[in-house]
């Protein structure tokens, strides 16, 4: 009786596993160019990895459908880091040693990105990170093989404070998430504040799985702050936004560039009204003038993504978009050679991407300027360019 | 005769309920001394107090010349007090021999580090432990069962293993908590033999038992407990004729 039930469970499990196994059929191709990617597709930062993976896949399919790079199809190999550093390092090694890829894009998170740098440097494989922290590409002397596409946190902090100064705001409360992203943001905020002459009157933190930040915000409410800056990615941004609204805090709320997803506005409901955030132009592509150098590219990406996945594109996917096309361009120019790809990337100038205009140099492996950010404001449930 | 254990005015409360109330008694060396009384009289509680398994509320217990009120059980074993349990507590996942070998723990010294590196004296000590454990097993007549899992033995033999384990600690005083419970007549007879043999080895036996014929048969001295208080004390004959004891046991067979 007991035995038979256990056998049934065992058999059904085997069946499930077998079904999945069969559905995988390998396809052979003519000298493909192998590009590796590691994103945090599952786990606590899956909202980053998901659009990144989708975008990378979409581009690979598109290029392959158009005949590949100089006739060579792209073979895109994607691994999931689950947001975990050990897995990131192992997956990087796997891409380099097992799959023998020409370049690696990702990971999604700053922590993972920093973790894989020693491996990347040692194996000498070009890597274009999709994570924010500026530490990933600095100092360049120790980051010879590492590039990154997202705007650095320091720009975000500076753009924010410059905007505030323009509005006469000098006393600011900051509230950050305690993970790699928030931590890096917090450091940049404190530094930029010093540089720009802004006083930080409160410095609060919260955990990535917290469901209520009222306590921290109550503390902030008791200060004489003229503005609040929240620095996080994911659902916590929405909760902070709602809590600020609920507590009846009237001073403006600034969010980091992690706010770059229209879903956030939708979920925060009315509370998001008036929220300010420096973000890449992807979210306001429709409202850019036609002559803007990014307009066509952004609109194309947005429409394609919507068509293929039925969801709004986010700036995170955009980082993967930029990384992919950079590698593709390099491959087109110099062919399958890791060192040559790196050299090509380092000297790439005037590359138009979703984040802005990239001008790499041996001293700058990010290549963006503050211009790549636009201060956006939520108005009537949409992002508009703030005045 | 020398006192080996003496309790003075010991008292135990469990959340306001008095289980043992101001009991004073002595156990003399080289005897079989029994503690009897109706169910719930506080016999096992006294055993737990003596062996350090539960702390006294008040009073004093001397073992030879030392006050042992606050000593932990393993220290008392080291001093020479061993015990068995009413409902037999064996390490069922270990073999019979291993069970008895655990009893040698307190008389051996090899620690974590010497065990890990298997220094030569570890082998020597281990051999001695095994030898002594086998001796105790044959003493209780179970040398043939040494390799079997303790949990698979019949109940009577499990009890014997427990006694062997207690003996392996080299005790001077052994406390047996209802050793005859659950045994048949034949087994009880063997047990009586065994207890006498233990005494003949020079080990004092302190016994809690319900089987009156066994108690009367082997005891040198008997103490009677009722509702946590000592009501009588003396040789088997005296006790059998004590009106207070008969009163306490009214309804129960003596």
């Amino acid at each position, binding site marked *: 009786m007991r*035995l038979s039930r*256990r056998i049934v*469970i*065992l058999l059904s*499990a085997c069946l*499930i*596993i077998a079904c999945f*196994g069969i559905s*995988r059929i390998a396809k052979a191709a003519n000298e493909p160019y192998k590009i590796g990617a590691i994103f945090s*597709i*599952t786990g606590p930062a899956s909202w980053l990895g998901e659009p990144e993976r989708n975008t990378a896949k979409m581009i690979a399919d598109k290029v392959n459908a158009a005949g590949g790079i100089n006739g060579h199809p792209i073979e895109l190999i994607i691994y*999931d880091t689950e947001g975990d*550093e*050990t897995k990131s*390092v*192992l997956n990087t*090694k796997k891409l*380099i*040693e*097992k799959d023998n890829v020409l370049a690696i894009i990702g990971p999604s998170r*700053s*922590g993972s990105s*920093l*973790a*894989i*740098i*020693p491996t990347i440097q040692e194996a000498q494989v070009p890597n274009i990170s999709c994570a924010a*922290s500026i*530490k990933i590409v600095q100092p360049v002397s120790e980051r010879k093989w590492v590039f990154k596409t997202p705007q650095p946190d320091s720009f975000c902090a500076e753009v924010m404070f410059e905007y505030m100064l323009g509005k006469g705001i000098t006393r600011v409360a900051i509230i950050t998430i*305690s*993970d*790699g992203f928030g*931590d890096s943001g917090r450091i940049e905020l404190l530094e930029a504040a010093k540089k720009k002459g802004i006083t930080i009157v409160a410095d609060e933190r919260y955990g990535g799985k917290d469901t209520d930040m009222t306590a921290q915000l109550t503390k902030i409410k008791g200060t004489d702050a003229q503005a609040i800056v929240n620095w996080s990615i994911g659902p916590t941004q929405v909760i902070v936004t709602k809590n600020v609204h609920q507590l009846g805090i009237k001073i403006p709320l600034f969010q980091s560039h992690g706010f770059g997803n229209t879903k956030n506005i939708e979920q925060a409901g009315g509370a998001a009204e008036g929220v300010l955030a420096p973000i890449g132009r992807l979210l306001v592509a429709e409202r850019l003038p036609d002559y803007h150098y990014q307009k066509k590219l952004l609109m194309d990406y947005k429409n394609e993504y919507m068509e293929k996945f039925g969801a709004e594109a986010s700036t995170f996917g955009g980082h993967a978009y930029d990384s992919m096309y950079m590698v593709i361009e390099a491959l087109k120019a110099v062919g399958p050679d890791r060192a040559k790809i790196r050299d090509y990337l380092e000297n790439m100038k005037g590359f138009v991407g979703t984040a802005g205009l990239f001008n790499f140099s041996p001293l700058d492996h990010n290549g963006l300027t503050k211009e790549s950010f636009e201060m956006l404001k939520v108005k009537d449930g949409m992002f508009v360019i703030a005045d | 005769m020398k006192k080996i254990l003496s309790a003075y005015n010991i008292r135990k409360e469990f959340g306001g309920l008095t289980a043992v109330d101001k009991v004073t008694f002595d156990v003399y060396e080289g005897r079989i001394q029994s503690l009897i009384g109706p169910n719930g009289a506080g016999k096992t509680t006294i055993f737990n107090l003596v*062996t350090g*398994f539960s702390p006294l509320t008040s009073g004093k217990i001397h073992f030879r010349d030392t006050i042992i009120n606050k000593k*932990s059980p393993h220290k008392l*074993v080291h001093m020479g007090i*061993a*015990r068995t*349990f009413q409902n037999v*507590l*064996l*390490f069922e*996942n*270990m073999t019979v021999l291993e069970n008895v070998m*655990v*009893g040698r*723990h*307190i008389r*051996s010294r*090899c*620690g*974590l580090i010497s*065990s*890990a590196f*298997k220094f030569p004296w570890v082998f020597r000590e*281990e051999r001695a432990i095994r030898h002594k454990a086998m001796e105790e097993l044959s003493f209780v007549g179970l040398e043939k069962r040494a390799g079997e899992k303790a949990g698979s033995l019949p109940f009577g033999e499990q009890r014997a293993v427990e006694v062997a384990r*207690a003996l*392996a*600690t080299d005790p001077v005083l052994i406390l047996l908590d209802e050793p005859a419970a659950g045994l048949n007549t034949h087994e009880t007879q063997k047990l009586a033999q065994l207890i006498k043999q233990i005494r003949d080895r020079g080990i004092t036996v302190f016994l809690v038992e319900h089987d009156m014929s066994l108690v009367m048969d082997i005891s040198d001295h008997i103490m009677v407990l009722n509702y946590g208080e000592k009501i009588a004390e003396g040789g088997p004959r005296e006790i059998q004729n004590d009106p207070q004891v008969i009163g306490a046991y009214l309804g129960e067979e003596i």
Partner: protein
Amino acid sequence: MNIKNIFIFILMLAAIVIFPLFVPNKYYISVMVVVGFNVLICIGLCMLMGYAGQISLGHAAFYGLGAYTSGVLCTKYLFNPWLAMLCGIIITGGVAYLIGVPSLKLKGHYLAMATLGFGEIVFIAFNELSFLTGGPSGMTSIPRLSLFGLALNTDLRFYCFTWVVVLVTVILSINIVNSRVGRALLAIHGSERAALAAGVNVPAHKIQIFVLSAIYASIAGSMYAHFVTFISPSSFGFMKSITLVTMVVIGGMSDIWGACIGALILTVLPEYLHVFHDYEILIFGVTLMIIMILMPKGLFVGAMDGIEWIKSKIFRKTNEKDTVGI
């Protein structure tokens, strides 16, 4: 060591020597290095859980303490890595002692919660003490180890180093569990009251093995820090503790070899589950549950029982007792 242990040990030794010769690419060497770390922790955890019967849902904290002590001392105070590793052992052992003394008085689920809570507190400390630990972004450029002037800078060298450590640990641990101390631990697992009555100093032995298992985890942590050269708190959180316990239980916690096999399987399994993409988590969970339902004592013990069962079928021994876990 008895014949079974010697046999399995030789098998393991052979596998470790042969593996790098036939491995298709270097990547699998680094996977095996990580397997080595997990095996190391799981051996300690197995002695704690399987032998002494004490649960711990906070062992990732000890792993992290080892890693962070090495990381901090080597990068901030420029210690020699070996000295830092030793400091890690001392600090972790000390912390384990301090938390173990009150915690190990607790039983069952209460002990589980206490260790879980301790693990979380340490995890929060890693995040918050950013002046030391670099906070949530972690710390980079931890130096590599070198042994007798030979830098352990390739995966293969680190592989050899790791597995030598593991093999030595295995021998020591098997000696321990088959000794007077191991017997005492099993006794505690069986019945604490009976162990006390037999003269076993129960609290001291529990603490001792708790500290020892913490030290194993600390060594693994230090090695991890020097291998990956980057550490951040997220590698040492609650989920890591759970994974470690799962490894030990799935492998079979009543045997050191079970813990080793559990660590191997649960580290390597995700590599293969990868082909299932988004179904990976689901299949992983289902696999866990099925193993536990079918073989509650774990794979190794289950397999051993299976071998016994087959033997008894072949030789038609008189005792027809059903020893199989199913």
